[in-house]
């Protein structure tokens, strides 16, 4: 048997990098048992934690980069260990000390964010191009900002989500503003992948830009932007309010400001994103919005609300390659098919990218429309 010796210096590095609750773990293995990775491949979460406790960490292992930060494990850990913090801390040790290598594709996304403020490496100057014709919205003195997230701002499929959002906001008479010239990526996946310094500088830049523009409320499409603004920016002193588009739509509907005119005759199932449902307890509002669209029939999949099945895109995984037969989104798409849904409704750009990929994986074996809730709402008000 291989002989190992505890190496407290390494354990201390993880603790200093934020893995504070490391020592609370009593090695029950519930995290391993509840982690979605173990549906498709081995990911020994408990063992990694024990290795970290003793400082015998294999930083070069692929494991360092697997966690999708879906929060399944954190939600049920009997000792209340924030396992995501520990995973982040291990990545941070790699990113900051160079004990091992950051995966190439992740490294590329992070460098792109550092260079042009978005992970796709698109020119910063084209961030507002989704809004055609060029919206006047940059000019109003409204305190409400619509922050579309980098992917809807640049990626061709997701641009439609940003455009749909703008159309709805206008239909509801919301006076809002966009700031493509000055805003940057929120930095969520940057931080989750261990690049703390870059995250801090993005956060400072954004907070400065928002405050210069007099922003007091931000509407977002991405649950990841939502979580980062709401929890992490607030910790850094931000004072603006954040609201996810599904929450906002739900409010507009209740206030009678959003009226539907067209039936959307479809059988829809809603996929809860980890960052709305599990991280922030938001799962009633998206259902309320869907129910309000005339014609829609909602069917539920087995794993819903706080017990949702992760798509695989959180924690920077969206920028890393996931082998074909190891994609959670494939399992989820199968679930949607099993309940005979015609549309898989989403509320997260990462989910959208993953499910579009999964459709390709199934090579026509599954026919399903993948839509963001805002697109369905847009159809309903057309």
């Amino acid at each position, binding site marked *: 048997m291989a002989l190992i010796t505890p190496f407290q210096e390494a354990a201390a590095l993880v603790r200093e990098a934020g893995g504070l609750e490391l020592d609370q773990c*009593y*090695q*029950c*293995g*519930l995290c*391993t*048992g*509840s982690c979605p990775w*173990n549906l498709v491949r*081995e990911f*020994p979460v*408990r*063992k990694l934690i024990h290795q970290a406790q003793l400082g015998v960490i294999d930083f070069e292992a692929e494991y360092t980069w697997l966690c999708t930060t879906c929060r399944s494990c954190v939600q*049920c*850990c*009997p*000792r*209340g260990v924030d396992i995501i913090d520990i995973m982040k801390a291990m990545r941070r040790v790699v990113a900051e000390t160079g004990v091992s290598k950051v995966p190439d594709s992740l490294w590329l996304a992070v460098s792109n964010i550092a260079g042009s403020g978005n992970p796709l490496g698109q020119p910063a100057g084209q961030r507002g191009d989704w809004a055609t014709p060029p919206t006047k919205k940059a000019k109003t003195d409204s305190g409400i900002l619509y922050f579309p997230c980098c992917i809807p701002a640049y990626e061709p499929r997701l641009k439609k989500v940003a455009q749909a959002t703008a159309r709805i906001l206008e239909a509801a008479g919301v006076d809002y503003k966009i700031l493509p010239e000055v805003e940057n990526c929120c930095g969520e996946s940057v931080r989750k992948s261990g690049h703390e310094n870059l995250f801090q500088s993005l956060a400072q830049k954004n907070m400065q830009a928002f405050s210069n523009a007099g922003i007091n409320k931000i509407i977002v499409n991405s649950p990841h932007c939502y979580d980062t603004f709401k929890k992490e920016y607030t910790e850094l002193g931000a004072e603006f309010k954040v609201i996810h588009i599904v929450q906002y739509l739900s409010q507009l509907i209740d206030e009678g400001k959003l009226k539907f005119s067209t039936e959307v005759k479809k059988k829809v199932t809603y996929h809860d994103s980890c960052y709305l449902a599990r991280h922030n307890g938001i799962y009633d509002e998206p259902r309320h919005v869907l129910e309000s669209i005339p014609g829609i029939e909602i069917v539920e999949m087995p794993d819903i609300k706080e*017990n949702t099945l992760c798509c695989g895109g959180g924690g920077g995984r969206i920028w890393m390659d996931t082998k074909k037969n190891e994609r959670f989104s494939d399992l989820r798409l199968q679930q949607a098919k099993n309940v005979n849904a015609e549309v898989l409704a989403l509320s997260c750009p990462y989910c959208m990218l993953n499910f579009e990929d999964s459709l390709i994986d199934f090579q026509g074996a599954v026919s399903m429309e993948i839509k963001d809730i805002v697109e369905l709402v847009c159809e309903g008000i057309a």
Partner: protein
Amino acid sequence: MDDDIKIGVYVCHCGHNIADVIDVEDVAQRARKSGNVSVSRDYVYMCSSKGQNLIKQDIMQLGINRVVVAACSPRLYEQTFQNVLRESGLNPYLLQIANVREQCAWVHEAGLQATEKANRLVHGAIRRVSHHSPVEEQSVPVFPATLVIGGGIAGIQAALEIANSRHVVYLVEREPSIGGHMAQFDKTFPTLDCSACILTPKMNEVSRNPYIRLMTYSEVTDVSGYVGNFAVKVKRKARYIDEDKCVGCGICQEKCPWSTASEFDAGLGMRKAVYTPFPQAIPNIPVIDRERCVYFLKGKCRACEKVCEAQAINFEQEDMYIDLQVGSIIVATGFDVFDPTPIVQYGYGRLPNVFTSLEFERLCSPSGPTGGQLKLVSGRTPESVAIIHCVGSRDKNYNAYCSRVCCMHSLKYSHLFKEKTGGEVYQLYIDMRCAGKAYEEFYERVQGEHVHFIRGKLASIAAGVTDAEEDNLILTCEDTLLGNLINISVDMVVLCVALEPRHDTEQLSHILRLGRSHDGFFLERHPKLDPVATMSEGIFVVGCCQGPKDIPDTVAQASAASARALAMISKGKMEMGAITASVDEVVCSGCKVCNALCPYSAIFFDEISNVSRVNQVLCKGCNVCGAACPSGAISTRNFSTIQILAEIEGVLA
């Protein structure tokens, strides 16, 4: 200063504890120079009998009438030195302790400064003690009857102990019968003796003992008064059956046409609307459950009335309130079991054949719904079982504490399952905790019965699809010793659920003025040195209402508390602290500020004279009221302003 005052000062070395840091001789010498000090000495151990004799002799021979002891904290030896004064014919409150150990020697380096501080502390004590005057000690008579709340094994044991020494006990039990959880079990670990066989004789003893006044189907609704003399109100719920006439034949239960789920069978079996919960019930007198009885619900039926030859059925009965007077109270209300429904991954309530531990006890019991045969919902005998530890225990999402008995009862279940079915047993545990006499040996014995032990917390249970007439259950869990995720397919799952505080603990804690610990159970006075007493004098907590524990520990606590109650009765009175607060009625403005502040609810407001008064028995002398009184009307004996100022002046002089 008063010429008649003769102070003796005694400086203790406490071995090396004090003498190594403080120049004790210097302290004794300097003390002698203060006014009114007639004698001062230092000695190696003042608390030894030789040390005590030094003080005694001085009091008797030199006429010393005030004593200062410079030694350790008054919490440790104040009572000892008070006794010295008492035995020498001096009022024990003419004593002042200067704490030169904890407040000086232990917190400073040896040297002049430490000695200087000790000198000042002693000087303060000398000044203060000159202003001491004799304080009368109070005692209250103890009414020689005891109330026991809860008739589980804890309450039964306590009641019997007291009644066997021929003192009256009121045993109040909420359910129609005594017995508690133990009556629901088949066998008990680690000896596997039959639970009913050891419990029933004790229950019978309760019903026979002339000193026990048993009140079942009853609850305590109000308690007032204080140690030695509590006034208790008990609500006796109407049974609708005349206890004097009923002969316990059981014909009413047989003929009653209305059934409902039996609480005693953990909902697995049925009982009638008129019922005794189990065959050995004490008293063997049924109750009519008015929530279920169709006569009460719809106004028609009274079938039982027609068949009862003893004519004991009485639909006119009403709830009764009874007043009791008792000297002490023993609380033995036990625990509730955790409801695992919120852990959706375990499928309790959704998947058939997922049971709780209490349900499994009933399935094993010969008096249970299956006559003691282990059966699946379909009626088939299970061929395999998984027993899950720590469901709702050791889990911050539910209860952070360990429930202490589950490791052991899961071993018991392994044995029973093997014995009854010969099938496969899996135990899913996190840590095996088998601390107790013959417990580890029991663990080893069960291991020898080819039980599979898997170290890991169950992640989820899913219904597997098989060809058999019913689905099996597929368990997913990390086997942390192998480092592999494993799937286990079984017929039956037993969730060993946490022991939780009774759902109405909060309510009872208000009635009894009892504290609760962070886990929700009743709080004992001291976790190690006084585990059955509480901060409310004369009220004791025993068994699982104080925290999860097994039957041996429960019985030991029950016996301990009854010894305490008996000691009070045999003494006939309780000495109360003499240091209590009192209100100067002339100065009191009647603002009531103090009323709500008193942590012991000792202050009441006299509406006629428009002043607040302090109940001298309830007051513990904490002086919260004194500090808060805006008129300065409240003073606490031996903590008068003059005394405290004198001490401060002495320290600063």
